């Protein structure tokens, strides 16, 4: 990297542009604007068109000669040593291969743009570059779904490509960066963050230029995120804040505040909704968007774009003349189908992976918001307690879009109460089959309520491509279930698991340990119940009182909360309150024991054998083995529990 000292320090990159001499060169020249202000040099075949280029290293055009290929590698090594490129960009064709290989050797990042002539079929160079290059762009929607999650489509020299949320270029376009920080326990990227994707589309619809930074997926430290934001120089930065994300978020905010001209900082999400004052403390956020953010944030940016403040924007908490003001509540969005689809094109989709899925390229969908039940451990502040259902056709439209636009190979339904309206689910399933989408596997990852499923419904789901359902049983003791205000019976759990198995579905069951008043015998009974149910997967968590839940209020009023800071609450798998009967150590021991007892059974291990035949299946089981090791070795459980993420339902 060259540094020039003018009035201020200006960085210029040395960029290697590699392309052959025909249409690939034409495409590169069309993109020249992107490299303005940097030192670009070409690596091309020797031809009339390339001899006219200003700074070019030309090699003889012998693409299929293996000796020429090796000679090019050596030539390139010399060129790299001389020019010291910081970045390689190629529009193809096969000339990209030696360049990107040498770039790998020199640890230089590389970008490959698939040629506009490839519409539905990948080029063979493209297939290789998909794995080798650090960024891989295609120029046709048709091709995006053919490649896979590493491929991105962000504009094209030929095709039209508008942001999902719509393109409303205004005189003054605000630049917005959406951020999810790292989790308190470490990076966790099971699934792309749905909330941010909805916010991204909403802001695009209000004329914002949106960027997304998912620190978990990209393994970015707080310093990295701050450096990125400093470079992007956005007008506003929005954070999604849950309790486990809070420490990481505040770290980044501190970094941003230290920048010369800090952008406006906006927080949303569960933790921000419950405790807006905390986030509006001196030196932290400028605005908190409470509850559902799409409409509120849209209105807020309209006002900010005109240089105004949050006066009169319902659902915002903010600092007015140094004093914290809470604007009135905003009613929850009544017509969910009026919201634009989440924009996944901004996310690094190749970087998400979950052991709870069959395929790593899985995109989430939410078909309803809100839940009328009153479980004590569940947080309802964002989506509320009134169930709002999207119409079946609207759900299946998005489903089809995820499959046809992005090429999603699996769908995760992340509703809290997906099957609340059986007729609607039947209609969704029928439409999935009708439109040929039943071939795409899906699962209901946040859990169904056992009182909501019937054998017929589960069979319909199976026929429409569902391969696994999860149920929230929470405990094997009726008294404990009742204390959680869960409103289900042990018998209903048994019947639901049996019906799902009979429908040919895999079953996962969620349990919690360390609830208020739970005894050692109760935890043992839960483990016995789990073995009796014999589900395919069992997931245990340690009861955690997140702010805004009934459980939290209860442990606070009874003086049982045992944390010094939110960081303590954010580390999964450890007790954050005095449950009455059990000590923290006992709960941690029982937690490990429960997982060990379930996952180390020969019966469970035998069931894993068929899954080993696919690459993803093999990879997931290998990673799973590592996880199981953490249950066996004491002291590792904190890391293991972290992977669960925050769960509701």
């Amino acid at each position: 990297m060259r540094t020039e000292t003018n009035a201020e320090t200006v960085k210029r990159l040395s960029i290697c542009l590699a392309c052959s001499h025909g249409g690939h060169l034409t495409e590169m020249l069309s993109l020249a604007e992107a490299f303005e202000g940097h030192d670009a040099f070409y690596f091309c075949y020797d031809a009339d068109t390339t001899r006219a280029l200003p700074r070019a290293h030309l090699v003889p055009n012998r693409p299929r000669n293996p000796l020429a290929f090796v000679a090019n590698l050596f030539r390139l090594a010399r060129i790299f040593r001389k020019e010291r490129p910081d970045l390689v960009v190629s529009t193809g064709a096969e000339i990209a291969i030696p360049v990107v290989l040498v770039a790998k050797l020199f640890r230089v990042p590389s970008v490959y743009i698939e040629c506009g002539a490839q519409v539905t079929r990948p080029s063979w160079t493209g297939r290789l570059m998909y794995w080798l290059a650090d960024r891989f762009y295609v120029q046709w929607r048709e091709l995006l779904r053919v490649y896979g999650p590493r491929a991105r489509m962000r504009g094209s020299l030929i095709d039209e490509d508008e942001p999902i949320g719509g393109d409303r270029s205004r005189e003054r376009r605000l630049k917005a960066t959406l951020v999810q920080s790292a989790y308190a326990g470490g990076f966790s990227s099971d699934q792309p963050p749905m909330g941010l994707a909805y916010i991204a589309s909403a802001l695009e619809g209000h004329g914002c230029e949106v960027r997304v930074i998912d620190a978990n997926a990209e393994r970015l430290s707080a310093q990295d995120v701050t450096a990125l934001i400093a470079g992007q120089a956005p007008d506003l930065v929005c954070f999604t804040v849950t309790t486990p994300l809070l420490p990481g978020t505040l770290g980044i905010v501190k970094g941003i505040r230290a920048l010369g001209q800090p952008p406006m900082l906006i927080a949303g999400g569960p933790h921000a909704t419950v405790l807006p004052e905390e986030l509006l403390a001196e030196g932290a956020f400028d605005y908190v968007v409470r509850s559902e953010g799409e409409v509120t944030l849209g209105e807020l940016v309209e006002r900010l774009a005109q240089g105004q403040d949050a006066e009169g924007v319902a659902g915002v908490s903010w600092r007015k003349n140094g004093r914290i003001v809470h604007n009135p509540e905003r009613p929850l969005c009544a017509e969910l189908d009026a919201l634009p689809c989440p924009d996944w094109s901004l996310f690094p989709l190749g970087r998400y992976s979950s052991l709870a899925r069959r395929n790593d390229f899985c995109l989430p969908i939410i078909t309803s918001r809100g839940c009328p039940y009153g479980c004590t451990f569940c947080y309802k502040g964002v989506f509320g307690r009134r169930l709002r259902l999207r119409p079946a056709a609207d759900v299946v439209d998005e489903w089809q879009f995820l499959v046809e636009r992005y090429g999603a190979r699996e769908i995760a339904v992340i509703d809290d109460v997906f099957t609340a309206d059986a007729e609607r689910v039947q209609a969704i399933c029928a439409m999935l089959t009708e439109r040929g989408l039943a071939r795409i596997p899906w699962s209901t990852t946040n859990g169904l309520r056992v009182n909501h499923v019937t054998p017929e419904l589960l069979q319909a789901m199976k026929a429409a491509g569902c391969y696994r359902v999860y149920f929230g049983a929470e405990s094997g003791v009726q008294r404990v279930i009742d204390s959680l205000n869960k409103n289900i019976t042990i018998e209903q759990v048994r019947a639901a698991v049996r019906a799902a198995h009979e429908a040919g579905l895999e079953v996962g069951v969620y349990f919690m340990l360390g609830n208020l008043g739970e005894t050692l015998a109760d935890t043992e009974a839960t483990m016995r119940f789990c073995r009796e149910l014999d589900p395919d997967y069992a997931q245990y968590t340690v009861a955690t009182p997140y702010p805004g839940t009934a459980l939290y209020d209860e442990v606070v009023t009874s003086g049982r909360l045992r944390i010094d800071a939110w960081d303590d609450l954010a580390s999964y798998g450890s007790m954050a309150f005095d449950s009455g009967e059990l000590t923290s150590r006992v709960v941690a021991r029982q937690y490990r024991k429960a997982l060990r007892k379930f996952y180390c059974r020969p019966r469970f291990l035998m069931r894993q054998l068929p899954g080993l035949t696919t690459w993803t299946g093999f990879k997931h089981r290998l990673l799973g083995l590592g996880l199981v090791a953490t249950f066996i070795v004491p002291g590792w459980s904190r890391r293991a529990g972290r992977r669960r993420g925050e769960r509701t339902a």
Partner: protein
Amino acid sequence: MIYVTLGTMFLDFPRLIRKMDEIALSTGEKTVIQIGLGQTRPETCEFFDFKSRDEILRIQREARVIVCHAGIGSVLDALEARRPFVVVPRLKKYNEHMSDHQLDIAEAVQRRGWGRMVMDMALLAEACANPTPAPPSYRPAEARLVAALRDDIERVMALGRL
């Protein structure tokens, strides 16, 4: 006037040239063909091998309809001229191209409603007589791709990696 463009491909495309001759003969409409490197010469139609890009864009804007092979450069020029156009893919089986990728491009053009694809030469006369109107708002997302690259460059400057 019908303007026909065969791009810079070194392989011949006699199927289209012969058919355009036939159509020009029967309708009497002035037809100009840009031939490129191919060997076949039309008998009725006017033709030239290459002209400067500016001149070609001028001819295209004057055309009532553009007939082009499904090369990316030709399709882009036709779209830029904002004239109705018919796209005829070069096929491997007639030795008009080394692969059938022009078929993909032609199909995409048809799917987007940018122009009309013709595979069967028997349908070409009708397509030239009734082409689909040019898309009024066609705008390639070039600026977005440039912005994406600038983002990547920004990222390398901030982190030294992508």
